[in-house]
């Protein structure tokens, strides 16, 4: 056993020496990377570490942080019912709009890919526009207005499907579903662009080989040729989809109000916003952020291992 350890450490030491020599040779590389690395560490790595640290403290900015152990997590998971509503809503949104938006992005990119070039350019703009249109989604508040003036209510009443206007954005029964609809509308984002571009890069010769080998229709072609070729883009799209699915908060806050009726449209990020930016309970808010980080990273890992099996 002792021998094993001494060998292991000798090997480790050797590796470290090799790495150190290599690093010395690559001095200029570090110089090039340094400005970005320093800023990145400051604004992206440090916040994660700091969030984890603050999540174990009581901190309200005015007083110095006071260590309280796991208290924040315990009260989050056991006492805070609104947080659990937020988790439920976020998971519901992530599970439904995440995959659906992801599939939509790929499916429409794939359909667009077969169009002539100028039609394709127009189509890309049309599908991509909602995701960069600022807060254009507030226009949905007009469509889903709670009185008979709202388009959806007026239409449904006109066709006799309902006899009284429904409060789409204030009734807890419907709020979350309307938000999902809006999020889906905005879900063709950066991932979609990546898919469109990636589909253009798929080697034509492979399709022709496919015809010879008897790929019968477009769906077989999609599964056996296109999808395996698109794997790197699919990974990238997954990262983007997770970002969107777990980061939902602007849409629910602006459409359903903040706070929403019975907290029915509360998401984890809304909860974080509430505690961090309205109540200034920073320690508690950081505990929420830490849980969110964990969820995102786990979800990313799960999707990556799932995507490795596509087309095999």
């Amino acid at each position, binding site marked *: 056993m002792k021998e094993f350890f001494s060998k292991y450490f000798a090997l480790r030491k050797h590796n470290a020496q090799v790495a150190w020599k290599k690093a010395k040779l690559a001095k200029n590389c570090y110089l090039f990377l340094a400005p970005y690395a320093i800023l990145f560490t400051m604004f992206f790595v440090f916040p994660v570490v700091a969030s984890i640290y603050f999540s174990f403290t009581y901190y309200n900015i005015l007083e110095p942080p006071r260590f309280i152990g796991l208290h924040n997590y315990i009260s989050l998971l056991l006492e805070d019912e609104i947080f659990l509503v937020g988790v439920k809503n976020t998971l519901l949104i992530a599970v439904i709009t995440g995959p659906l938006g992801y599939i939509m992005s790929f499916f429409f990119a794939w359909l667009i890919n077969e169009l002539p070039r100028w039609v394709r350019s127009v189509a890309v703009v049309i599908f991509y526009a909602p995701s960069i249109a600022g807060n254009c989604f507030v*226009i949905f508040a007009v469509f889903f207005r709670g009185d008979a003036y709202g388009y959806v209510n007026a239409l449904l009443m006109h066709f006799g499907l309902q006899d009284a206007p429904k409060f789409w954005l204030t009734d807890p029964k419907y709020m979350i579903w309307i938000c999902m609809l809006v999020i889906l509308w905005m879900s063709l984002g950066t991932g979609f662009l990546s898919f469109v571009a990636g589909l253009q890069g798929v080697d034509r010769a492979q399709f022709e080989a496919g015809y010879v080998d008897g790929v019968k229709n477009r769906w077989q072609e999609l599964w056996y040729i296109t999808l395996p070729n698109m794997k790197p883009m699919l990974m990238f799209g997954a990262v983007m989809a997770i*970002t969107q699915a777990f980061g939902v908060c602007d849409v629910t806050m602006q459409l359903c109000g903040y706070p929403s009726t019975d907290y029915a449209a509360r998401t984890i990020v809304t909860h974080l916003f509430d505690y961090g930016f309205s109540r200034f309970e920073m320690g508690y808010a950081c505990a929420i952020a830490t849980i969110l980080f964990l969820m995102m990273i786990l979800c990313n890992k799960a999707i990556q291992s799932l995507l490795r099996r596509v087309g095999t």
Partner: protein
Amino acid sequence: MSKKKREAAVEKPYRKKLIRRRKPNRSIGGDVALGIFLLLVAAIMFFPIVYAVSNALKPLDELFMFPPRIFAKNPTMDNFSDLFVTMGKSWVTFTRYLFNTVFITAVGTFGHLIIASMGAFVLAKYDFPGNRTFFKIVTVAMMFSYYVTGIPNYILINKLGWVDTYWAIIIPAFASPMGLFLMKQFMEGLPTSLIEAAKIDGANEWRVFSGIVMPNVKPAWMTLIIFSVQGLWNNRASTYIYSEERKTLVYALQQIQAGGIARTGQGAAVLVVVMIVPILIFVFSESQILETMASSGLKD
């Protein structure tokens, strides 16, 4: 993706012509059905945006009309001119807001371009200890939204004394992971022989970077610039900036929008102004962006 394909991807795949011949394994019925489906979905997707624009063109009485119309009967630009009047009457002038936005966007984007491409260059083209690990962390960081890192960021910026200055927005924008990611993926497509040839001719790293690599990755520049501009344009920065004279244009416009029922017309105009800028930028740079996105794939 194999090496050969990677090199094919560098030759502007988006510009490549589609084969004219019909693909032999496509049914005409299927083509038509999918075409109609696509058209229908496109119409639904685009409707809210069209509606937002037509709303902004409606005179006030039509905005409150029942039943509401989709298209304006007497389209006017009244809402936009009202908006300018309101902006002109505010204590801080319109040009000041515009200057804030332009300044933040220009400086933030320029710094981001330089810093991120320097980092991306060595990450893509040199092998040194820590290279892969760093890039992996960057890809994970792409998932974090603004609010999630917001609290520690605020504390940090407060400690640095940048609260209520432009730097609170500009400096974090330098480090945006998305730009580095796209730049690095695109630079990997550059042939290594190009860099080696320059080195044999006696160029140092900085010369290789500024003279050989940067001119060859122009599409990636454009994409990085556009993503950065879109991000900074929509950045309301309400948590960091309190002084009215340092607020951004979008923030000021959305304050007008929040002015209640009396501002309905102007609110509709604001919606259009805020959304039209990123969309227009995208329309004019679409082919460059798509060229860059072709190399955006994540390999594990």
